[in-house]
């Protein structure tokens, strides 16, 4: 009976991917270090490998640029079951427990000795500042500067930039290196990683004096994301995150990610 024989196969196909099923299907950006790339060199790649090992799964990637339709084309199209980095509180996905938290930072040349951390520092009115532009929505530092009327000395770098070049968000840090700007206001993992690998000595300072800019948030806790209702997979991931806290921290440290306490991140 051909039809009956097919039934178990169909049922299997409908089940959510779970631990031990053989594959951990992850959607990643192929060109976005320090998070991920096609060669598996990002910290999200390393953490995904760690998770797959613990679950006894083989790791399988679907690569897609993290543009605005990323989730639609990947997770929600069932082309994968996990995406490695989503901020806690984001709608539309089911989150694991957060596995790290970071802060927006100022990146400047060490030789300039700015040691600038405060978002209300008066020097921000004259320094050439670079920020990332997202399009549609805005990164918090850009909005905080705008609220203070700091506009003319701020230059925008498109986060998606020219995607045909490696790691488009890196252009902002390169602008600090080549002195076309004095200081970058940037998300910590990007600033920390590119500063660490910069030929020019750079200083990475988490932003302070951010409270006056509420509801803007400058520290975010980051989790893994699965499809809503995929509780089995979420629970497996949660247990790995709990078990591997130290190993995850070591990976993040190796990438220069400036870490803050998860409970101090304000997006949760």
């Amino acid at each position, binding site marked *: 009976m051909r039809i009956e024989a097919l039934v178990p196969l169909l049922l299997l196909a409908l089940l959510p991917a779970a631990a031990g099923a053989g594959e951990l299907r992850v959607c990643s*950006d192929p060109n*976005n270090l320090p*998070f991920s790339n096609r060669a598996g060199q990002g910290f999200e790649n390393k953490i995904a490998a760690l998770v797959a090992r613990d679950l006894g799964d083989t790791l399988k990637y679907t690569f*897609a*640029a*993290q*543009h*605005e*339709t*990323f*989730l*639609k*084309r990947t997770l*929600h*199209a069932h082309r994968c079951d996990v995406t490695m*980095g*989503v*901020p*806690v*509180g*984001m*709608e*539309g*996905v089911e989150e694991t427990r957060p596995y790290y938290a970071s802060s927006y930072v100022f990146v400047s040349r060490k030789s300039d000795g700015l040691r600038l951390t405060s978002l209300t520092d008066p020097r921000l009115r004259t320094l050439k500042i670079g920020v*990332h*532009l*997202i*399009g*549609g*929505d*805005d*990164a*918090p530092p*850009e*909005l905080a500067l*705008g*609220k203070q009327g700091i*506009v*003319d000395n*701020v*230059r*925008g770098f*498109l*986060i*998606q*930039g*020219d*995607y*045909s070049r490696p790691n*488009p*968000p890196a252009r902002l840090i390169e602008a600090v290196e080549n002195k076309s700007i004095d200081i970058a206001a940037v*998300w910590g993992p*990007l600033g920390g990683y590119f500063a660490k690998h910069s030929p020019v000595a750079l200083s990475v300072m988490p932003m302070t004096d951010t409270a006056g800019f*509420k*509801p*803007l*948030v400058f520290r*975010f806790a*980051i989790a893994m994301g699965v499809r809503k209702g995929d509780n089995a997979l979420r629970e497996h991931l949660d247990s790995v995150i709990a078990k591997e806290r130290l190993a995850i921290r070591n990976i993040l440290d190796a990438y220069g990610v400036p870490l803050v306490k998860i409970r101090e991140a304000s*997006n949760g």
Partner: protein
Amino acid sequence: MKLSFIKPRAVIAAAIGALWLTHALADDLDAMSRDDKQWVMPAKNYASTRFSGLDQINAANAGHLGVAWSFSVGSNHGQEAAPIVVGDTMYVVGAYPNEAFALDAVTGELKWKYSPRVDPSSQGIACCDVVNRGEVYDNGKIFFNTLDNHTVGLDAKTGKEIWVAKLGDISRGQTLTMAPLAVKGKILVGNSGGEMGVRGWLTALDENSGKIVWRAYSVGPDKDVLIGPKFHPYYKDAQGKDLGMKTWPPGRWQIGGGPVWGWISYDPKTNLIIYGTGNPGPWNSNERPGDNLWTTTIFARDADTGEAVWGDVLNPHDLYDYDEINENILIDLPINGQMKPVIVHPGRDGFMFVIDRKTGQIYSADKYDNQTSMKSFDLKTGRPVMNDAMKPILGKNVTGICPASPGVKDWQPTAYSPVTHLLYIPHQHLCMNFQTSEVGYIAGTPYVGATEDIYAGPGGYRGEFAAWDPIKRQKVWAIHEKFPVWTGTMVTAGNIAAYGTLDRWFKIVDARNGKLLYRFHAPSGFVGQPITYQGKDGNQYIAILDGVGGWPGAIANAEIDPRVRNAAGGFAGAVGDLPAYTSGGSTLLVFALPHQQENAHAN
């Protein structure tokens, strides 16, 4: 009222017959567009009236319509394209991957198919589904754009590729979705991608080679915007040197938006092309103080050189994503007792603009639907009077902003009938609340953004098909629809007007009073553009592409990405019930009266 674009048909039909025999003579597209047997460009004619003089199908017999034949364009995305008909052939292009087809306009027989190799990653770049708004014909060739920034010229007879021109780069956020316009041997193409840091432009290509003849940017120095000695703007805020730079913080114009993804009209008498530019981007409005010229601007340009002649900035320093890329209908209207050549521009911002075609003077700007974000439009200054209470400010909940970001009307084009003297307007009826709530994440950057919660306007309906009297400057009748009416429309001398709904109904109504004459429950929701033509069998047909999608319909053809603010918190929220009515589709539907259906089958 006499309208200049209506001419005897027979003469033109004869001329076209001759042209089909030889390509030695250049086609007169203006003349061809007046031959109602054909529909040679999406807007029907250079005046963009989408009016046909055909009356075989009329208010008395439209109730007997039925499907004569259908055809699948093969990919279930929003089908926004207008089919076009040249001679006895219909040409149609689908949404991504933008396959183009030539069909016998009477029998539906496939004559040729052209499959461009469109870069799949362009799908991730387009903001609002992977749509294409249509093809255009000129001199034996078919021209259209692909999502990944190529303009294609094909031999209309064989479908053979003549040239492909690459005009932009998806890796820099650009896409092409608009239907080009052919004017005097040039193909006019504009880009999409305002939110992606694209610098908007309109480009003229040589129709024989695909080479760029001129490009007019929407932002930047005068030399890039093609502003020179010919430029005489009517209003003060558009007068001055290099305003496309000076109305921005330093350097910010370089990624200032103002894409040209909508419609272009052409006035052969003045040799002017007329079109509107999109919203400024990608910065939050408080980071781009200034008027942000030349975004949300209606431009009149010399069709040969692209030089600007006048420009009206309709939404200086736009706060609401009110692109002004909507169509411009070129008609003559009595202004203070005197007939004037004007432009009727149904604004995204909710004002019905009547603008002098030669000078850019705005004669009137009447609200044509519920509008709270602006109090009125000042005809002396050419600027809207803003309602400060409705200004979106991060950290503040602002409620009851009307219209919502998609505007009172988006790209979906209106039609004007010189018989009824009415303008037919498919549009949405939506308001929004602006709330700071959403945590988002793109390419490794978290942010706290604002959610636009979009919902039905007063009365509880979300869309409307309305008839507007441009002389009396008032609405004559209106049909309320459950969902935004996202199709174009067309109107005929038989006093029928056609449109489609997101919940799968194709409708023909009496152009005089809005009475429903015919409706057809189609495979999928409609976001296309209806056209009509007369086949070689002598019978009149009506055609439209069916397949839900576009900005409001993407929720029904695929799962929406919650990271897209305007999808998750915005439009998707406003049409969250749409998937209960429709799924995706890709069908060209051709309607005819009963005896015609038999003919089609016999052939």
